[in-house]
């Protein structure tokens, strides 16, 4: 029998940028005035100039929990809304498609949408998949989808927010929680047998003790990276990306509520628009493209002059134990995924949400740690499957894409793709983040057509099905046209009220 466990007295959050402030706010609000003391150690920003944080729609739930209304956030930071990602070709043969995070519009009492669409599509009696998705069509028209006149924000929408302004906004909001903040240029860790005993700030300027440490320092992994942690999940990266160029470009004249990914033979270029600028990201592989070449390609893909160009090396990896000993890593400190699907902020959210759900009140906390690691490994592996499916199936010419197609698949993805190829099935596993609709949008967008359909669909008459599709197609178009233009919506200002 163990003795009565000591309560956990001090939690220290070390980090920078949005990673730090979202984690600190979540813990600060969650703990209130009870329980352990919270201390924040803030490191200088590492975000490139003009970088934009792209948030998936899921992040709204975390913002809500933290009392951050997205309307005011967007106003204060010059951010914008996004209904998804358009994948378009640049200098190669490529069928463009749109990945929205929304379901398709279809009567709920009818046969399931996707196999019906496959059947009609094979008979050339259906429009492209995205035509049945309201946010996707609205986004193409430069409009945002509002469920009601007074909706708090567009539905099925994510955000684009400049990284530095987002962090500053969160930091200001965190001020209300009166958490002690120590500013630091650098940190070192002091280790004992149970993990970290204290964080040393700027050499010996300050020593901050704690029993639980949260590493929100981004890719530097300033805490967990110094522990003898057991490495990375098998499987390695999903693409050959090892260099990332970031730059800023002028804002779009008519701000589209979407991100655009331009597929080029030697990599891809993403444009993330906000009200004040367009963030340009270009990824490539150093084995085939030099930094100088990449600059030229990025500028030509973006079609504008680039400012503040920066190129950094990039390495993805999923940490086996993002919670090791008494150190819990969240965000990029825990794991870095391929930049293609804008999942970095979502990975941060997953870490924070599960940390809150499993927050211990004593040091040790073996059961909580094991569960956190299990669920993070599993969740991130499923996101990686989604990303790798793209690289495996992307029908683009060029060495960069060939290298992506040649990577070995993990058994789970191999299985998923087989089920999809066989019958258009989404074989869901535990801890999925991307919905069946997302898989359908991306796999069909990349040209996959299943080899059979469920018998119920095979037996359904084609004509009424095609007529229903035609009607939904019209309905989506009409509804999209009635939606407000993104620009107007932003100018008018989203409703300011917060969560009721």
């Amino acid at each position, binding site marked *: 029998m163990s003795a009565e466990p000591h309560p956990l007295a001090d939690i220290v959050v070390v980090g920078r940028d949005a990673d730090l402030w979202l984690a600190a706010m979540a813990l600060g609000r969650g703990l209130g005035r009870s329980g352990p003391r919270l201390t924040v150690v803030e490191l200088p920003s590492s975000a490139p100039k003009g970088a934009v944080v792209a948030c998936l729609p899921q992040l709204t739930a975390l913002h809500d929990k933290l009392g951050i209304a997205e309307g005011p956030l967007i106003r204060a930071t010059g951010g914008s809304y996004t209904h998804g990602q358009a994948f378009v070709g640049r200098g190669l043969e490529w069928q463009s498609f749109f990945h929205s995070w929304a379901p398709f519009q279809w009567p709920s009492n009818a046969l399931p949408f996707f196999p019906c669409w496959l059947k009609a599509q094979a008979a050339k009696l259906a429009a492209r998949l995205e035509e049945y998705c309201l946010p996707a069509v609205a986004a193409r028209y430069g409009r945002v989808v509002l469920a009601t006149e007074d909706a708090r924000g567009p539905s099925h929408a994510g955000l684009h927010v400049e990284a530095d302004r987002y962090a500053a906004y969160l930091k200001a909001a965190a001020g209300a929680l009166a958490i002690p903040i120590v500013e630091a240029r650098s940190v070192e860790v002091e280790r004992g047998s149970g993990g970290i005993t204290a964080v040393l700030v700027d050499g010996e300027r300050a020593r901050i003790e704690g029993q639980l440490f949260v590493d929100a320092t981004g890719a530097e992994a300033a805490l967990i990276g110094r522990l003898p942690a057991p490495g990375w999940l098998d499987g390695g990266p999903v693409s050959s990306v090892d260099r990332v160029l970031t730059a800023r470009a002028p804002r779009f004249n008519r701000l589209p509520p979407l991100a655009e990914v331009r597929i080029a033979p030697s990599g891809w270029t993403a444009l993330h628009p906000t009200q004040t600028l367009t963030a340009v990201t270009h990824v490539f592989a150093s084995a085939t493209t030099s930094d100088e070449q990449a600059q030229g390609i990025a500028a030509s893909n973006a079609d504008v002059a680039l400012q503040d160009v920066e190129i950094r090396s990039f390495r993805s990896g999923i940490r086996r134990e993002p919670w090791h000993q008494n150190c819990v890593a969240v965000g990029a400190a825990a794991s870095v995924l391929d930049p293609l699907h804008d999942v970095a902020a979502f990975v941060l959210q997953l870490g924070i949400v599960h940390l809150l759900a499993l927050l211990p009140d004593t040091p040790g906390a073996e059961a909580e740690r094991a569960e956190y690691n299990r669920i993070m490994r599993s969740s991130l592996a499923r996101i990686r499957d989604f990303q790798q499916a793209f690289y495996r199936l992307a029908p683009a010419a060029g060495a960069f894409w060939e290298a992506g197609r040649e990577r070995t698949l993990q058994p789970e993805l191999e299985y998923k793709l087989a089920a999809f190829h066989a019958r258009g*099935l989404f074989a869901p596993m535990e801890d999925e983040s991307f919905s069946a609709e997302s898989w359908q949008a991306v796999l069909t967008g990349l040209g996959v057509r299943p080899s059979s359909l469920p018998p119920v669909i095979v037996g359904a008459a084609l004509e009424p099905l095609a007529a229903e599709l035609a009607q939904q197609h019209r309905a989506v178009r009409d509804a999209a046209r009635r939606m407000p233009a993104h620009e107007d919506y932003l100018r008018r200002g989203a409703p300011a009220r917060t969560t009721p």
Partner: protein
Amino acid sequence: MAARRLPIVVLGGGTAGWMTAAALAKHLPRDRYALTLLESDEIATVGVGEATLPHLRAFNEWLGVDEAQFMRETGATIKLGIEFRGWNRAAGAYIHPFGAFGEPWFGIEFQHHWMRLRASGRPVRPIEEYSFSVAAARAGVFDFPSQDRQSPRSTYAYAYHLDAGLYAAFLRRFAESRGVSRIEGKVKGVLRDGESGRVTELVLESGARIAGELFIDCSGFRSLLIGGELGVQWEDWSHWLPCDRAWAVPCTQASGFTPYTRATAATAGWMWRIPLQHRVGNGYVYSSRFLADDPAREALLAALESPPLAAPRPLRFRPGKRKRAWEANCVAIGLAGGFLEPLESTSIFLIQAGAMDLLSLLPDEGAPFGDPRLRDEFNRLYDLQYERIRDFLVLHYAANDRRGEPLWDYVRNVELPDSLKHKLQLFRARAVLPNYQYGLFSRDSWLAVLVGQGIVPERYSPLADALPVDVVEQRLARFALDIRVGLDGMPTHEAFIERYARAPLIAAAGAT
């Protein structure tokens, strides 16, 4: 026009055979598939699963069956949950309801608030008093759940107790009227294609032959095709679930028309009590390693609330499942594919899940012999269902305090499956409930049984401490009050059945 109809043969009637045949008949295009069901009146069906889960409602709706008619024709009653008696003596009887406990106030799950209040020394009720469905079950009342999300009456689901023999007969009429042809006969031999190993024909004792492209093995424990003919291995789970026999006997109703099933722990297993409209089904599930057949039979008879209506019927089984339910061109549904004791009323659910999965994964003209990728998906889903249920069943046994009884001492000390060990550790350490999305049993179900079996977490989430304790106390008190108020005016279970679905007198054929 399809050139030819793909012949599908269901081997075996009974609950599994007719549920599967009904599902296929309802949803498969008749011009593309020909459905045949082979059964013999000489082979008694097991008639498993007289208690069901709420999922059966979805299955019936999916068939387009009228609920009241279904209930009348199967002598059905309402089931709000299962009462477990004597599984944990210290904790007393508890109900596992088809419903929620409390609410996740401030985004923190209910059990943390409940534990926090208890730890703070404030007055707090047993956890079941925060469940509307438990309250309704205890009060013996029922009405349809409310659509109003604000009402405590919206927090539960319901299932049925039914006469499985009558349900099979009901579905037989349904299936036959939709084109399933029933053949009476017994299988003498099975013909297979030498090269592929596929089953091609069933040879009957009469000499007749039935050819098919796909065979659905609903032959019950005999498992004629999957086990017998194809020799798919059995995965034995008897070290975790040692019960391998049962006696079943009906009696008349004398101790309450309860809207719930009862499972009472006994020396070498447990006894069920399932109230139907026309009788009460009883049984003793026991382990032959710990009790001989005769004393088991006597114990069951001694526990009956009224004289038996028939002689007790013995059942023998093995807990576990086939390694693969779909092999070559044969798919096992029901007992032919696996068996888990009826402790949580999962047998009919497993049939339903198998039939529904099969329907979406069925071969078609393009791949008549079964695309291995579709077979793999069927088997993956089947394994998942079995493993989830297994862990939940084992939990009931593992956490018992019946010290000094050999069966109970054995199951309390047996090495648990890793997946269950992990779930138990998390709950014990800090009241975290299992986190999975696919497969049976909600977090509320786990909470009911974990707490009911007397597992007390060491700690709860520290986030719960951030709320003023007065607020939490008021919320819980208010919630419990709303439950009691919500019960007002609900008809008794008996009155509900009388009004909605009273069966005409069911002849003795209904009795097991």
